[in-house]
């Protein structure tokens, strides 16, 4: 085999890349977040999260992303269980559900929900023909939750599916042989063993939902600002990188907490891919 040292050299392009484009950029966010325009040290950028408008945006983002994470979990768990036990064409269903839709641009797909959910849109017309009341969901927090669930559901299904697929069927059978019924077996065996997948799934949905600005811009009709929208505006409109960086650092705290949470429960990294 190549000598160990030579092998380590093969990683050089990546070491360089990771330092230049992963580590240094994050350090720069912290640097900008902790300085003002003159370059002097300040906590003001981070403290501006206490500004009522910013606090409101953060609070709405946290609330909507928690709700969509819970909905994703309840939709995804049964789906993952069905798919694990599905024999025919399992992988093609997975691809069809999650990979193929990505080939239609995600902004367009989200926008298509606008067309579907509109007050005079397809869904309301359908509801009316079967005699059900209309739903006025467009440009409300409800529509944003809808978009979040739609966009991030795959991130919940895949890790749960992976952890369920790893469960040794003999363990489940043993529980059944020892007299446990279906519900007890699920509660005592299947659910605890799939917990790493569930935790990864929660992180994989919560982080992008918390930080999105696109979904709220398209489905919230620009009336509802999430913390992501505030940060995006600081960067692309007001060009106040220092304030934007400071607010991003607040977001990073949430992200780091989620990462630690995942690292504790999901040691094998089941949530990844």
């Amino acid at each position: 085999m190549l000598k160990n040292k030579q092998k380590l050299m093969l990683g050089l392009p990546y070491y360089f890349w990771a330092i230049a484009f992963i580590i240094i950029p994050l350090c720069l966010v912290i640097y900008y977040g902790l300085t003002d325009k003159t370059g002097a040290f300040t906590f003001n950028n981070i403290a501006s999260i206490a500004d009522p408008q910013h606090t409101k945006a953060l609070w709405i983002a946290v609330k909507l992303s928690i709700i969509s994470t819970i909905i994703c979990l309840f939709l995804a768990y049964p789906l993952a269980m069905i798919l694990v036990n599905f024999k025919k064409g399992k992988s093609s269903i997975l691809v069809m559900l999650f990979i193929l839709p990505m080939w239609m641009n995600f902004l367009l797909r989200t926008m298509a929900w606008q067309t579907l959910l509109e007050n005079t849109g397809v869904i309301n017309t359908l509801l009316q023909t079967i005699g059900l009341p209309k739903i006025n969901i467009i440009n409300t927090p409800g529509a944003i939750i809808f978009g979040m669930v739609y966009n991030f559901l795959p991130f919940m299904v895949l890790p749960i599916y992976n952890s369920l697929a790893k469960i040794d069927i003999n363990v489940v059978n043993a529980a059944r042989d020892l007299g446990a019924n279906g519900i007890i077996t699920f509660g005592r065996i299947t659910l605890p063993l799939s917990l790493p997948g569930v935790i990864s799934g929660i992180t994989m949905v919560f982080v992008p939902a918390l930080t999105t600005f696109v979904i709220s811009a398209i489905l919230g009709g620009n009336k509802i600002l999430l913390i992501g929208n505030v940060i995006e505006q600081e960067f692309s409109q007001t060009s106040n990188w220092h304030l934007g960086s400071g607010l991003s650092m607040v977001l990073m705290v949430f992200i780091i907490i989620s990462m630690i949470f995942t690292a504790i429960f999901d040691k094998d990294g089941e949530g990844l891919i």
Partner: protein
Amino acid sequence: MKTAGSVLKRIYIALIIIFMYAPIVTLIVLSFNSSKSRAKWGGFTTKWYVSLFQNDAILQAFFNTIAIATLSAIIATIIGTLSCLAINSMKRKGKTFWMGITNIPMLNAEIVTGISLMLVFIFLGVKFGFFTILIAHITFNIPYVILSIMPRMKNLNPSTYEAALDLGASPFVSFFKVVLPDLMPGILSGFLMAFTMSIDDFVITHFTKGPGVDTLSTKIYTEVKKGIKPEMYALSTIIFITILVLLFLVNVSGNDNKKEKIK
């Protein structure tokens, strides 16, 4: 009882599929809508498919998207594969460290990755444009490559490589003839994953692009406010149907191979 359960399961999967595909069907329908408004149906037309090929701005954005996806996926695959060989030969601590670094772009919020790269380009004084988007895409693509090759590294059998050396092959030849084929499925899926992610990315491109350079995503985002050009629906439909047909063909030929093996 059993059949009732499996019917329910099928209905559930069907409902999820409808949920995932409702917007896609909507977009395909809109590409044939002769009215420019999304809200009403003005009759069937294929005119958008014709005018698409006269719309230079959309075609340029499409070209940029494909060029960035191809280049970034290829470069990320090369860097990622090499780094897997290196990381795999590290001691435990080094391995944990570099895998931790690799996880950062995967777990970090896209908006934070986007602005952090934007800040580094400002800091370095690089001109924003095609090049900065490419670097950003390579950065978020490398982890996908590494994470799809790494599981295969663990199963790699060093004896086959040593056997090739014993039989007189040079290290270079043995690597290409023995190690690489073993890793190939991982490398390939990493490449495809990277390519797909690059095509679908908006947020990171949004922060790292320069004025005048657009990918399909950023072009769509600016059009969302003014109203999307129906040609965009036509292009998306063409892309989607192409991939659908390709996947179908790959699946069919894949099944044929399996059958032959069984024979």
